[in-house]
């Protein structure tokens, strides 16, 4: 079973994402912000991370830079999942090391297709 860490400050989004991911046979962990997500990664590295952009404490972008800049040998796939839906944000995310990008709102098929593209579904 593949594992996914859902990082989003919205409880509703986390719940929706969890539901979809579980139907796709993922084990799901949640984090409310980038800081908590880093802690989770230290405890156990997931196969893929679904990452919001704007969050309190530590944003998705700060989290991604920290993750990709770290010495960690395991690097999970990172799929941004955000309402920042313009090309400038998308380019910045890719430059920082994101593997895929989902523009909210999203549905099951979209998420599934992106997980397939990064090779975890």
């Amino acid at each position, binding site marked *: 079973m593949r594992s996914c860490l859902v990082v989003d400050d919205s409880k509703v989004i986390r719940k929706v994402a969890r539901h979809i991911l579980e139907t796709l046979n993922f084990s799901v962990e949640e984090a409310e912000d980038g800081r908590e997500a880093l802690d989770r990664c230290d405890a156990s590295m997931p196969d893929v991370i679904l990452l919001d952009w704007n969050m309190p404490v530590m944003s998705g972008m700060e989290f991604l830079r920290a993750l990709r800049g770290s010495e960690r040998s395991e690097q999970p796939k990172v799929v941004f999942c955000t309402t920042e839906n*313009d090309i400038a944000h*998308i380019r910045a995310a*890719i430059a920082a090391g994101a593997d*895929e990008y989902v523009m909210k709102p999203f549905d099951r098929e*979209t998420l599934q*297709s992106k997980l*397939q593209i990064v090779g975890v579904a």
Partner: protein
Amino acid sequence: MDISQSSQRILSSLLEARTGQQITFSRRWRIDSALTSIMREREFDSIDQLVARLVSGRDPALTEAVIEALLNNETYFFRDKLPFDLLFGGPIRRLELARSRERRLAIWCAGCSTGQEVYSLAMNFLDEKTRWQGWKIEIVGSDLSRRAIERARGGVYSQFEVQRGLPVMQMIRYFEEVGGREWKVAPALRQAVRFEQASISDPPPRPGRFDIVLCRNVLLYFTTEMRRLAFTRLAQAIAPDGSLMLGAGETVIGQTDRFVSDPENRGLYIPVSAGGAQAVRVA
């Protein structure tokens, strides 16, 4: 909303006559939801009233709108993903060698809906510019639905449509943001493809002979007779060493003797040449 038996029958035979598609029993409930917006627009109180207008034969625009509404146009970029990997790994590699002298490839997507399938193929070719340098690659999509073909030609997709199946790298390379929430195919991609409104029962589009034919998720609801005609058309359009791809879960087996499974590429079909068919029969 209630639909009388006779209205159901009239609608299904209209669809069948114009498109070859059957409304199966399990899809009947869709009639209702499919026609809601037409009902509202035209201020009909019931489907029976709409059907009465249809059978009067005085409203061709209504007939066309109803057929458009009853067609299932569902599609997305790189649908099912795997078939595209298969196509580019198997037959396209083989044809690259086989056509290395003339340096021409023609691909036809029969029943291409709003164009995603066609653009997906074209993006994969454009991604490998140097490999295909000097080649003439024609990618043609056709569909019965006028509305779908207009959308395909326009190449504008909602945020929802553009990200479904499409890798983000290809999205930013081949699409431009328009008006905030929509994405338009970039000129280089638009120029790589062509669309025509036509039924599969019509003669194939130019250039008439194709190395690869995709007909995915189209034959599913055809009547037996229409399916046979479709396979005949597809067989006429395909090069003797060409490949046919159907949708996941669709097959030629038991449907036609014009194609057989490609032993080297699961899920693909190759045409049976006249000579080949004879040999099989003799054996």
